[in-house]
């Protein structure tokens, strides 16, 4: 029996397969199914601070517009309820999920203001989440804000949040950082317990008939995994922080590649959307069988075997590999 257990964020997990943040996780029934299918932990869908602010503003506007304007109709809607916004529903979901399953529930937060990040982080902790994933999703569009400023802001934010909560925090980052090792190292020094590579920015498309920019959701493929394993391998063992992969994990081999590069856990969503939650069982079975065939007694013994330091040619993960790849194309 192969031991697939790992620990991630200081939390013992039965295996390295985690359901990543997605709309699938809005349903308690789905979360129960995930546990039944042996998924080790669940990252809930993100709570977006601007969504909460937008909802509050919409409600306030909707209730107050036209009031005290016309003598016969000083108000239009009965306004005396207690209203719940995305955050209340989210916290309720955490509570219900914790009641429903034993596997760890990780909250996911996407804030826009430092105050908002801290407030919601604490609320997620108090609702019972086992850990928190901070989704750093800022798309810089202004030329007057330097990359240094952006990255400094990230680090400051991580420091502020982690200093105010007890539960471990994982930082989900995008690929678009000037020096990933530098930033991740600073995250580690700031109190982050893990870093999750990489966020997928959904790229909008253009509708030429209507001359509109339209949302366009494309699920990931295994091809996207390679970017992630490269960086996990580069980061492995260089700093005191757990590494996790999200994006491009579709098969048992993808899970194994992720672990081999040095990740503690691999996170899956697109594959569940395409194949259903029960697919997790097949993936884990495939991981076990591969490890057994190749004489690994546990997943821990396989972790990081192909990190940058461990391979014969570390340059494979660096720039020289680029030349090799191009050269291989000609032949």
């Amino acid at each position: 029996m192969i031991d697939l257990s790992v620990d991630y964020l200081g939390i013992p997990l039965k295996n390295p397969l985690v359901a990543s943040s997605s709309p699938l996780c809005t349903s308690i029934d789905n979360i129960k199914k995930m546990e039944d299918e042996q998924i080790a932990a669940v990252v809930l869908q993100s709570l977006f601070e601007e969504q909460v602010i937008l909802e509050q503003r919409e409600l306030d506007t909707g209730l107050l517009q036209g009031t005290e304007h016309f003598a016969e109709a000083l108000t239009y809607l009965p306004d005396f309820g207690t209203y719940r916004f995305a955050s209340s529903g989210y916290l309720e979901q955490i509570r219900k999920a914790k009641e429903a399953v034993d596997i760890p529930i990780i909250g996911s937060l996407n804030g826009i203001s430092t105050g908002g990040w801290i407030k919601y982080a604490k609320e997620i902790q108090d609702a019972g989440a086992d850990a928190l994933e901070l989704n750093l999703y800022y798309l810089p569009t202004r030329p007057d804000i330097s990359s240094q400023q952006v990255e400094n802001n990230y680090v400051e934010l991580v420091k502020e949040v982690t200093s105010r909560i007890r539960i471990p925090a994982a930082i989900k980052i995008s690929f678009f950082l000037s020096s990933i090792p530098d930033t991740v190292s600073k995250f580690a020094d700031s109190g982050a317990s893990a870093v999750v590579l990489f966020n997928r920015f959904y790229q909008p498309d253009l509708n030429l008939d209507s001359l509109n920019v339209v949302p366009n959701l494309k699920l990931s493929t295994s091809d996207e995994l390679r970017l992630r394993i490269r960086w996990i391998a580069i980061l492995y063992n260089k700093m005191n922080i757990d590494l996790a992969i999200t994006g491009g994990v579709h098969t048992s081999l993808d899970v194994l590649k992720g672990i081999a590069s040095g990740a503690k856990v691999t996170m899956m969503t697109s594959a569940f959307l395409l194949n259903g939650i029960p697919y997790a069982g097949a993936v884990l079975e495939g991981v076990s069988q591969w490890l057994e065939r190749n004489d690994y007694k546990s997943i821990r013994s396989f972790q990081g075997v192909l990190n940058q330091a461990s391979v014969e040619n570390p340059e494979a993960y660096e720039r020289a590999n680029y030349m090799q790849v191009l050269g291989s194309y000609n032949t």
Partner: protein
Amino acid sequence: MAEYMTSDGNEAAAHVAYRVNEVIAIYPITPSSPMGELADQWAAEERKNIWGSVPLVVEMQSEGGAAGAVHGSLQRGALTTTFTASQGLLLMIPNMFKIAGELNAAVIHVAARTIATHALSIFCDHSDIMAARSTGFAILSSSSVQEAHDFALISQLASLKTRVPFLHFFDGFRTSHEISKFELISDDQIKTLIDNKLVIAHRERALSPDNPFIRGTSQNPDIFFQARESVNPFYNYCPEIVENVMVQFGKLTKREYHLFEYFGSPDAERVIILMGSSQQTAEETVQYLNGKGEKVGCIKARLYRPFSVSHFLKVIPSTVRKIAVLDRTKEPGSIGEPLYLDVVSAINQAYAANRVDLGSMPFITGGRYGLSSKEFTPPMVKAVFDELSKDKPQNNFTIGINDDVSGKSLQYDTGIVMEPTDQISAVFYGYGSDGTVSANKNTLKIIGTETDYFVQGYFVYDSMKAGSVTVSHLRFSHKPIKSSYRIFHSVFVACHQFSFVERIPVLETALQGATFLLNCPYSTDTVWNKLPKTVQKTIIEKKLRVFVIDAYSIAKELGLGNRINTIMQICFLGLSEIMSISVAKEKVKEYIRKSYGRHGDSIVNKNIAAVDQALKHLNELPYPEEITGSIDMRKVVPNDAPEFVKACTSRMIAGQGDELPVSAFDPDGRFPSGTTRYMKRNITGEMPVWDPDVCIQCGRCSLACPHAVVRAKMFHTARLAGAPQSFKSVPLKRRGYDGYSYSIAISPDDCTGCRLCVVVCPAKNKTDPKLKALNMQPQPPIRERENENWRFFISLPESDRTGLNFNRIQDVQFLEPLFEFSGACAGCGETPYVTLLSRLFGERAIIANATGCSSIYGGNEPATPWAANRQGRGPAWSNSLFEDNAEFGFGFRIAVDKEFNYAKELLQKLAPGIGEELVNSLIEAPRKTEKDISDQRNRIDILRSKLNKIDNPAAKDLFSLCDVFVKKSIWLLGGDGWAYDIGFGGLDHVMALGKDVNILVLDTEVYSNTGGQMSKATPLGAVAKFAARGKRTPKKDLVMMAMTYGSVYVARIALGADGNQALKAFNEAEAFDGSSLIVAYCPCIGQGYNLSNGMEQQKRAVQSGYWPLLRYNPDLRKEGKNPLQLDSSPPSIPLEHYIYNETRYKMLQRSLPGEAAQLLKRASDEVKMRYGWYKYWAAMKMEDGV
């Protein structure tokens, strides 16, 4: 320990009524609606009455229905009440006779309001109360907010003791909406005063099969009279019982009342008698005059029915020589108004019975005042006393107006200041949308609760629903405030909108040395010369202290949008020094958390930031000692306006309507059409600008515009001679129109900035796709230019209607709108349909308009949007009442039919002199198309010229009638409150009669005009007042009900989803020779979303299957076709993609998500079912019996 509340008369009365009743059946009507709404809110919050139970609150379909439900509930032994006013009270009268005749203990609370006569008025007088005085109800009058609270209980106690039902009334708006500090009656006090044995006795009189009897028999001449007289003892004892209850109440609460009270000099020679809030003003004036040595006094009448002669006589000083009785009502044809007649009768009876010691009988005069909330001020009171000083004081006088027709009005001196000098009076001018009123209400609550000041707030709103000017009158005093009139002399004036200074005399009330707070977008360096000369002059002469702040910039920076309320509130509190500013800030923050906490912490935080920031940006304005500006006050109307507009409308627009004399008005209530075009309100900061190079000339913008501000014309290019340089036009894209140009113009001074035209525009700029053919731009820099363009555009000729296809939007855009620049909300969903109707049929339309939003924006003075074309023809419009609109409009139909028949008879009689051919063509020519109508008008012209040459009575008669040969388009117009509820009986009957009337129901799915109460049109799951937890029953399907007649043309339309289908419906309805019903989907502010998305929401309503578009045309049967055509596709989006864009649904999801989910499921099933029915019906074949 005494507990106080700072609120208005409605809440004060409802606060007691709710606690001492078990059942509350209501129907909303201004100004009483808030009482029912509060009862409903408290019931939803599960607040209990004094017996520990939550009253059952139900909204009925009309006041008649509410009265019936009240009667039934009383008969079944429940303690029951209702709240109403005006016409609502009149509709209750038949049941009131029954309730009183059966000796049911109950109280009806009334916010007294004018009854509609020559016009409707939502404001105060006692005509409604007086119309009900013969019902047998006792009538108790409150004159203040405290009294409204106290008498709500006193009337209940008295009614239980006497078994006489009570009408408890207080003045609409003046008391019902006045904010004041009052002492609360506690539950314990109520329980002490209410004798539960009487409650049980009331219950024991109930109809019960366990103790059966019958009531409500039919009686004959042998016994009715005697049985009717059997109630006499109850009425005889009633006054004394009421007095005893008042004494008992006074012992417990220390607030003493009597049936009649005297205030003034103990040896008064001149006395006035009145009821209602004016008593307070009279008392204040008497105090002032007594101080000057005048021997005057006033009698406050509280219990009007039963009128107790003995209690009345007790309070009259024996020295009285002259009495003036002031009535706040008018009874034309009577020798005096009701209270006057009662007083004369009382004194006459007393003298006849030798029961008084007054020496010779006093001289008694009667007068009228205060109709429709006309101000009643201390100078007016003094004028009445001065009149009494004369040897022969005038009888049947009026005070407060200038009656130059019957010469009945007394003159009064407006220059005397009699207001108490120890009061702090402040006046605030704001826009409805900027939060000024809610800020002031909050200020009153804070100061009323946190200090020992007495407070008073009275709020005046203009009659517009967009860009409404609000004026708040606030008073603060260490003594109870009796001034029941607007502020005429203030120590503080705030103007929250800079544009007001050039059109409203905001400083007219400012006293010498007063403080003036001005919100303006200018710095202290530049603002002085932006002020009009007259404003500078006033500031200098009155030595005002002026403070300025750019509140909009601060609000924008803080993310508050255009809500400047918190900022301006802090400025007032800082400058007025009524309380310490640090305490004030803390209290304001507390109130922010309390008021907005439910809306989310981001909202609270922004407002709290505003509290902290406001004073940092407030600066005192230094100013010179001379006038240095060059700006004049804006002209109210242009010089070329018609005479009536210059003489009257302009005065009303300028807020000087009070000064207009009686002779200014037509005695039958008529007003000229087309006067809104002179208002030019200039209320928008942004307006759409047309890019002709992008425009595809589709016409959708002009159809979507709620205010007929965006217009299109086609004209011969030669007409461009003399056009302003900035005037834009392009070649017309229309076959057969070479040499023609196309232009779109927008009126900057009439635009409300709703953006609907931009949103519906389908054309995108190919090089910059965020731009369209219409794009919003800041209005002030381009206002002058666009006004010039507009004036030129209007001078261009209108298109020939006979050449246009009325079924195509591209053609209909060129039809002149005869409904323009109404006071409807920005983005109103109703008015595009109304404007469309006016374009299609306006020049021969007669419109009966139910009371509701459409009658307010359609007919609320000072100006009307219904206009005439250049030929002088246009819609003839009238509003009768709410419940009778279908019947009223039906009356137009039958009158026109009769006229036509009679004209036909005359024509035939005069045929030899006129010519058979002309006679036959007049009678038989088709009257369907515009060409038909144009030809018929030509024939009428010929007929007229022939009739002029025939000298006999029949010819003269026919001459006066011959316009009837042009087909009249009769429209019954109104909202869902009318069509689905109160007017449904009449509507149904009119449809059944099958005459040629067209009915347009503007369905906002809620009672929009009175503030969003539920109607039977409100959908399942939507929140509305009286459906706070979401409506639990499906929307009434009026369309399907009408279709079941089989003989009525029926259509369901949504302009934003399919404009062409809407056009077809209008045209087919008009062409159909029978009753036609069109139900139109109307976005509304009561639905809770930005109305610039209104057209998109209409699309989603249709796409979700919720609002299937259809036309049911009985004429199709003649062609062997199914009359029902389903014009929209099966549902393609889930219902939640439509409804959850609206606060009325979303708020339930946020407050009760479980219930919202259940209601969504039910509503989705309902949509599927209903669409399925229509689909099935539409697919039926003729042979299946469709």
